[in-house]
């Protein structure tokens, strides 16, 4: 409790196996209502594939050498990683923390607050894995996957989901109320949704935006990796995209847990 300044935000996290109990609680809730949960994950990408891929795609020239629908299909998988984990660890976590007092109930047991937050983050990553695997299944059915490397998307979705969960949890730790999640949603998530090489190649953007999008937007790296995996065009530069997640995820993981401790332990 005594460290102050920047160091206090990056104090290492001590976890036991107990964070899985929190993960398991969320899984139990998910399984109770799984029909409702699977539906949007399945339906939304279908809409985009039909509307953008088949509809708009007829007017759009190939992007980065790929027919439009094949270009956007892996992006839809990456977008589902972002959305599912980000919203799980903002709105859903906030409801559990603030309205349902679920965290309060759990920390009265041998499970620590750090483990509660870690369980939430790992659950957010799991949501990413579940949803993006469903989307992956959809684009396989549509015949838009050309390489068995596409299977790598499944473990990737967990890592990407963990990063977005951790970033989301940082916002949850500082948000004054649930409505304020509109700010990160519109100022962070929506720009990424549009500008991360999702629906058009980022090379058409002004160079400053390109630099920001290709360095700072996590979604750009997720889209690049997913697209390479479904198309089967592997290159060494993908290691950089992967390394980007390996470096940033632990940072935000630890930061979000410390921010939550500052919020909840007075």
């Amino acid at each position, binding site marked *: 409790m005594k460290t102050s300044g920047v160091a206090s935000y990056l104090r290492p996290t001590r976890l036991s196996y107990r964070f899985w109990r929190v993960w398991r609680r969320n899984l139990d809730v998910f399984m109770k209502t799984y029909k409702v949960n699977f539906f949007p994950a399945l339906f939304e990408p279908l809409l985009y594939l039909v509307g953008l891929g088949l509809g708009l795609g007829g007017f759009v020239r190939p992007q980065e050498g790929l027919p439009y629908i094949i270009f956007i299909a892996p992006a839809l998988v990456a977008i589902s990683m972002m959305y599912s984990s980000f919203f799980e660890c903002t709105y859903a976590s906030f409801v559990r923390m603030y309205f349902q*007092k679920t965290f309060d*109930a759990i920390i009265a047991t041998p499970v620590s607050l750090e483990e509660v937050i870690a369980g939430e983050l790992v659950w957010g990553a799991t949501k990413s894995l579940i949803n993006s695997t469903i989307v992956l299944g959809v684009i396989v059915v549509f015949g838009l996957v050309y390489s068995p490397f596409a299977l790598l998307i499944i473990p990737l979705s967990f890592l990407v989901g963990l990063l977005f969960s951790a970033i989301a949890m940082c916002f949850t730790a500082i948000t004054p109320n649930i409505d304020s999640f509109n700010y990160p949603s519109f100022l962070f998530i929506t720009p990424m949704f549009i500008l991360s090489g999702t629906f058009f190649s980022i090379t058409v953007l002004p160079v400053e935006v390109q630099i920001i999008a290709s360095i700072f937007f996590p979604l750009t790296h997720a889209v690049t990796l997913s697209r390479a995996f479904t198309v089967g065009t592997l290159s060494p530069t993908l290691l950089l995209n992967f390394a980007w997640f390996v470096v940033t995820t632990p940072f935000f993981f630890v930061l979000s847990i410390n921010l939550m401790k500052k919020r909840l332990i007075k």
Partner: protein
Amino acid sequence: MGCAAMESEVLIEAENLTKKFGDLVAVDSINFKVFEGEIFGFLGPNGAGKTTTMKMVHCVLPLTSGRLTVADMDVTKDAREIKKMIGVAPQEDNLDPDFTVCHNLLVYARYFDVPKAEAHKRCEELLKFVQLEEKRNVLIDQLSSGMKRRLILARALINEPQILMLDEPTTGLDPQGRHLIWDKIRSLQKQGVTIVLTTHYMEEAAELCDRIVIVDNGKIVEEGKPSDLIKKHVGEEVLEVAYDEDVSNFLKSAFPDARLEVVSDRIQVFTNKPRGVFTDILNKFSFKAAMIRDANLEDVFLKLTGRRLRE
């Protein structure tokens, strides 16, 4: 009676326990001991620091200073071990609204590493104990507030705790619900569970607690057995009559060493004299709306903490 408690082990001990939130001193250097097997009550007005103290004991709130041990373990070092032996029934409803009654208990058992088969067994026993068997598969929002309190009590027992901490266990309950909770608390004490509770119901404290501390503004203002405190501070009986200037003067001369209090339109007379002192006076003179009643903990409480409203 109180001596029985004195002879047993100290289970919880606080020395100069202090908690500050910024400039606000919520708990101000208090000392207390809770003995094994007793029902120990924190009694105090809203904002006195009762809940804050409870939260420090069950290790969810860090101390600002002082020392606090549970079963000789330091709360700042052995939080996990301490939490394993404590069951907590918080003041607010934090049951899991996503689950049914039974599932709430099973999920909670998992946090304590209770094996699955054992958890199911305890779940059935506890639902029976708090009379919620028929509500087993009902979602939380369909329970009445009394049922929720009982489920919270059951949940606090899922780890078979040595210490049970109840933060205002009967607030908002009807008399039936309250008496049911009291019965359960007493039967748990018989089973050997040490119980620490907070309340602002005097009746509850007098009814249940072996020992109480009265807390006000973060400080302990008095401690002891409820009956001893009543004798010490307000005597055995209280005379109450309708207010009248003359009557007031008369009572002052008749009971020179008594304490007179005027509360709205009534005069209350407190004295340390034994039972029966007021009877003569009532027989000789007729006062308007006079009555003699037993002194109670509420008299002690109001004497010690005043009548000012608390926010």
